[in-house]
């Protein structure tokens, strides 16, 4: 990495292992279906579908939260280029933009609860950053990147003490 480069690494918190999640989910299923099964065996079956629905929701929530565990984005800003490296469990891909012509933009998201998409674009190409961040973090990151990358046709000086954090 050149001495004046800046590196920003984005990664979600993920303290739960897959095995831990399985154990937790299984214990919830045992408790929930155990109770519901007991009640259903006495003829009061309507408890069962609610237990099933709830476990489905819990499973989805855990899966969504765990799905991000391998996601990582590394943004490397040097005097010449902005390089974005996307990593997940199976893939690693990088996109390079010329820093002088790159610009950071906030584009409208699909719903009021997902209000923005942060992209870096140049020469008709566009790459999304921080899709797993929350809105405030994304806006904060956008402000930071705008300072570092500058507007189109602009290359502000980079902080001199660069390095990996």
């Amino acid at each position: 990495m050149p001495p004046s480069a800046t590196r920003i690494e984005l990664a979600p918190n993920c303290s739960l292992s897959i095995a831990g999640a399985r154990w937790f989910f299984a214990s919830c299923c045992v408790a929930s279906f155990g109770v519901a099964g007991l009640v259903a065996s006495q003829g009061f079956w309507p408890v069962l579908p609610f237990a099933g629905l709830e476990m489905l929701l819990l499973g989805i929530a855990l899966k969504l939260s765990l799905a991000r565990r391998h996601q990582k984005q590394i943004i490397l800003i040097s005097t010449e280029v902005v390089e974005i490296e996307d990593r997940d469990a199976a893939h690693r891909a990088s996109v390079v933009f010329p820093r002088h012509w790159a610009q950071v933009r906030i584009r409208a998201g699909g719903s009021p609860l997902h209000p923005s998409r942060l992209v870096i674009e140049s020469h008709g190409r566009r790459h999304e950053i921080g899709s797993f961040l929350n809105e405030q973090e994304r806006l904060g990151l956008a402000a930071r990147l705008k300072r570092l990358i500058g507007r189109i046709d602009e290359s502000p000086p980079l902080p001199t003490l660069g390095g990996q954090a």
Partner: protein
Amino acid sequence: MANTAHADHAHDHHDHKPHGLKRWLYATNHKDIGTMYLVFACIMFFGGGAMALVIRAELFQPGLQFVDPSFFNSMTTMHALLMIFGGVMPAWTGLANWMVPMQVGAPDMALPRLNNFSFWLLPFAFTLLLGTLFVPGGAPAGGWTLYPPLVLQGGDSFPFTIFAIHLMGISSILGAINVVVTILNMRAPGMGLLQMPLFCWTWLITAYLLIAVMPVLAGAVTMLLTDHFFGTTFFTASGGGDPVMFQHIFWFFGHPEVYILILPAFGVVSEIIPTFSRKPLFGYESMVYATASIAFLSFIVWAHHMFTVGMPLAGQLFFMLSTMLIAIPTGVKVFNWCATMWKGSISFETPMLFALAFLFLFTIGGFSGLMLAIAPADFQYHDTYFVVAHFHYVLVPGAVFSIMAGVYYWLPKWCGRMYNERLGKAHFWLSVIGVNVLFFPQHFLGLAGMPRRIPDYSTQFADWNMVSSIGAFIFGFSQLLFVAAIWNAVRSGEKAPQRPWEGATGLDWELPTPAPYHSWETPPAANILPKPGH
């Protein structure tokens, strides 16, 4: 949602905060949603409190004074539903929203949009429920336990009540799922489960309880609905159903629900007592195991609520003894709190005063619970004011006092300003005097045989009822001081330092004061993480 690790820290501070109505309507920030939960709970506390004052005004003296018996019954039912589902539960979820991410070193809750949805279900649920006050036949009047066949004989309010309970249940489940996933998956790198503050632990166990029992409530009220409208006879004796089975199913939900209301209180008190004793919590791990034991036992004690339905002797013995077992882990907790204070350098700021009141008065509620657990004695106490006194001692100086303690404790961190200590102490003393004048005489009334849920009573009960009502008005109006203290702090309180309490430890106190809009975007450094078993 993520750690953003930055190479240069020159411009780290950014506080992008949406403004106006949209900030709250589309809120996904855990602090905003926590604030909304707490404000909502406060409104519900005052609504439920006003209903309690109607009840106590009516019971001030024998005879019918202000309301007719049907409306009186509606007030008892609505008071309970508002306080449990609208007051205490949302207050805990609000505190969890505020504190869990800050305490585990996460930037937000794991599922922020789900968080928004689970909050916004609540206003709709309670609008539906409160709307029943205006439907023909009035609001539900069969008690919060919704026992059939009485509840099936209600007026037009019945389906609205059931739908409202469903919405509250969905909101609770979604909130619990979010807390569980946040605690399990969003902890800062290097933070093990036994490094979490007790508040997170108690909430983790509470969320587990919620997930386990909420489908039971949903199923039970759905069966009531189908019995009423679709010709099923789950609980209708004339069709071969079993009304007593509803009680079993309801209390299988209802007893863990009591612990859902009280376990987070144990967490708050376990944070406050060490802070103001300037000592680490005595027996951290035993506190965790005691909490888990209480949660486990809560699943196997439900029938102590229904000794009088006529159950076999073996059943009575089992439920009596299993209920008494709860005293052991609870005793461990009370011992540990006392041991934490032992030879500590104790100071008595408002949060500590509320925590100490919790310790004494919750223990009184626990002792009367032990009395009620004795099956033959329960035949005498059942459905009397002794039971009312017991569960109010557990829930008001237990759950509500600890919520207030938590608010006073963390308020400086939330808003960056100190509350007025004199106002806080005035609130405390009026509350603690009011609550005892209100509920202690109800033990005497119950032991003398006064039944609960009656608008009129024999003249022999007149004196203690009058005392109790006076206590109710002292307690009720003194809560205005709570609002005043918070308002005063937020508007014009003294600026709070980063660590307003000398003995406070934990990640939440490592953040600047007031806590920034987005906390822990960069993971906390390993050297500020709490030590295991601390």
